[in-house]
């Protein structure tokens, strides 16, 4: 992965920059010992690593503003970091950057059940937001599989999704406001604990901007009353196409499950070997979950089962109790772990129109043979977001490159059938050089114009999202 050469003038001022940071922050909040900065050298895209110049761990918005203003004056690039679980290299450092980590900013600032929101510091983990409100019967809806570790900061930056976004939407649909610190240290409040803003929707464009427009230090999030209950059914089919038709028929029938997850045969087999969830050995498996009271769940599942049966499943299993529900989800939830058991893997994240599913899975199968690499597919089928997991051997020379080439072909295919490069993991460095597949120059120019306004000198996370050759002039300035 090509990264810009570090700025020699920054590298040569390393000691002065660290001293400057120490003058702003308490001693334990500035990390420059190479043994310790190594902890920040990569995120969840661990194939790419680079230690930063230094890392800082501020505790308040004021400290963040002071650090940014200082780096701005010094011309030092800053890479914001939440929990470092990004799968696209969004939080990967460059050698001349300061990593600004919000991990120590994890306080709950305000909970308001009457108005149904919570305000937190952005370093708080996703799951602990729900943890803070569940005793009162509420939850925070977006639930990425990484929710135990990932921070709201990263969720906002990536506009993260989760298994239940078919019903509840993604981060942007559940975000009411942020405190944002711009690169020059200016602090702005966008949105607030009310439904919408009156002027331009700056909050909407900050969400999903991958840490390039400002550092989010606080977030106001919508919380929802917890549903009374949930129950999954598992349906196995002998063909991907039929499973796809079943999904489409459920949606057309006007039923809104909270989740429709899809797994293909390689993935089912891997999960079965790993987690022994008792999945049938078939080409396609659907897990469909609905919510409500027991009677409401019965009402929905009766209809879903009727539709599913029309398509002649090889198996249809409804969870009769909590334990059976857990077993149905067990395989799906361990999918990544299961694939990781077989080999190293790369997790892709393209989205396709649901109708293109059979065609795309067939093409992926053909390409898998061409590239000589195995691939398993897990897929949020209700919304078309697919996660092909390509297996490779990191110790085998050339395998990573082959895997990346295969991945790029899959993502191009997603765009070709009317979809996109990334449904929830973000562009980062991983898909940066593929942006031209989806966008024309003018499309990217319009996006970069937004960054020009928020961060005119392009010091915040500058080498991400946009292909280096098109951002070159801006980054240099």
């Amino acid at each position, binding site marked *: 992965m090509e990264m810009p050469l570090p700025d020699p003038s920054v590298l040569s001022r390393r000691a002065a920059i660290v001293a400057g940071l120490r003058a702003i922050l308490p001693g334990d909040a500035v990390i420059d010992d190479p043994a310790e900065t190594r902890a920040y050298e990569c995120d969840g895209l661990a194939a790419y690593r680079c230690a930063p110049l230094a890392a800082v761990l501020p505790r308040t918005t004021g400290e963040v503003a002071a650090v940014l203003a200082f780096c701005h004056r010094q011309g030092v690039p800053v890479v914001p970091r939440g929990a470092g679980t990004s799968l696209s290299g969004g939080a990967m450092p460059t050698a001349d950057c300061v990593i600004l980590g919000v991990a120590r900013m994890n306080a709950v600032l305000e909970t308001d059940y009457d108005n149904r929101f919570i305000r937190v510091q952005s370093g708080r983990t996703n799951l602990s937001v729900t943890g803070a409100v569940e005793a009162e019967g509420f939850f925070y809806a977006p639930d990425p599989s990484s929710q135990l570790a990932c921070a709201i900061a990263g969720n906002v930056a990536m506009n993260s999704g989760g298994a239940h976004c078919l019903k509840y939407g993604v981060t942007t649909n559940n975000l009411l406001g942020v405190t944002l610190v711009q690169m020059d240290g200016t602090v*702005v409040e966008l949105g607030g604990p009310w439904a919408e803003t*009156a*002027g331009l929707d*700056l909050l909407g464009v900050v969400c999903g901007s991958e840490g390039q427009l400002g550092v989010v230090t606080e977030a106001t999030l919508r919380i929802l009353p917890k549903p009374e209950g949930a129950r999954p059914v598992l349906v196995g089919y002998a063909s991907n196409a039929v499973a796809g038709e079943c999904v489409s028929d459920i949606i057309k029938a006007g039923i809104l499950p909270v989740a429709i997850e899809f797994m293909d045969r390689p993935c089912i087999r891997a999960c079965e070997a790993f987690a022994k969830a008792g999945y049938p050995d078939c080409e396609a498996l659907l897990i469909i979950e609905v919510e409500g009271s027991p009677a409401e769940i019965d009402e929905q599942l009766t209809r879903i089962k009727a539709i599913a049966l029309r398509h002649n499943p090889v198996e249809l299993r409804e969870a009769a109790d909590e334990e059976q529900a857990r077993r149905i989800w067990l395989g799906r939830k361990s999918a990544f772990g299961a694939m990781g058991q077989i080999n190293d893997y790369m997790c892709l994240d393209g989205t396709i129109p649901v109708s293109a599913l059979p065609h795309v899975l067939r093409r992926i199968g053909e390409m898998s043979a061409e590239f000589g690499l195995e691939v398993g597919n897990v897929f949020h089928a209700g919304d078309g977001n697919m996660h092909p997991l390509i297996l490779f051997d990191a110790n085998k020379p050339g395998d990573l490159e082959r895997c990346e080439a295969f991945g790029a072909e899959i993502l191009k295919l997603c765009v070709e059938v009317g979809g996109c490069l990334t449904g929830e993991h973000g562009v980062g460095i991983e898909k940066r050089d593929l942006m031209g597949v989806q966008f024309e120059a003018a499309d990217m120019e319009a996006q970069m114009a937004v960054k020009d306004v928020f961060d005119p000198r392009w010091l915040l996370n500058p080498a991400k999202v946009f292909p280096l050759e098109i951002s070159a002039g801006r980054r240099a300035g």
Partner: protein
Amino acid sequence: MRPASEAELSETIRGAGGPLRVVGGGTRGPGNLPGVALETGGLAGVRLYEPGALTLVAGAGTPLAEVEALLAGERQRLAFEVPDLRQLLGREGVSTLGGVAAANAGGPRRVQAGAARDSLIGLRFVDGAGHVVKNGGRVMKNVTGYDLVKLLAGSHGTLGVITEVSLKLQAMPEAETTLIAEGLDDATALTRLRAALGTPYDVSGAAHIGGRTLLRIEGLEGSVAYRAGALRSVLGGDWVLASRAESAALWRQVRDVAPFAGAAGAIWRLVVRPSAAAGIVAALPGARAVYDWGGGLIWLLTEARADVRAAVAGHGHAMLIRPLPGMTVPVFPAEAPAVAALSRGLRAKFDPRGILNAGVMG
């Protein structure tokens, strides 16, 4: 001017010698703007409709009614319940999808399904320099690059002229029921509405209008009956139920702010912290209110010519929807200086000559 294609629109904008006034159906945009009218009616037509994927792509000039009729044929709809403000604003014409997007329209179901921005999954637009730009796409989950869709939704034609929109759709529910309570004072009514929104019963409308307090539930028959019963017992008091057509008629009144249509006075749209709503209205003597979103939205009718914003400070913001003649109060609330600087910067980038709906948003 009425360009017949996106390319022609781009030419028109490039060649414009002065301000342009973007007109969809003229039903919800700002009234008297300077400039030559630039109509989007030539950019009409549904380009893709996939009921099984809940997606629709259509030209910005496509009439809303045409789309709603098409969707109804498949028992689908737009989730965000577009208000019809023609009576309220004294307008004629037909709403278009582009206007709906540019105004980020959203009705009572906002409490459950969001506004236009939350259903918009992609769009194309021509910026003030004539550049054709696309963003988003036709799939529901997409984080590829910045979300300019959100930026354009609610930009009131200032950053660019929207030429095409992609929308996520919703299935029409099998059943709909409204719980109605009569005679509650504002504060009590709104407290009940907030309590209802805090239950797991998936309320899709929560309004207080003309002395009636309304709660809507939608879904499968059995489920709606169950939740109506559960809500009644949780909330206490007397709630009568309205059936399907009757229920729908009630929510059209809320959506379109029917009680204020034809009434004299200035009309304000306040978006606030719901628990502050009753207090805000009480502090404005003589004002009449229609409350939606459990109090999160207040439509205010007042004879007063003064700015109501002091009453809202710290709790949200207010937009002057229909001024009295000669009122000099700004339509949009002032932004904090640093936020205003960002908005100004974006306008300067997307519309360097400042010709698109100039001055609309202040």
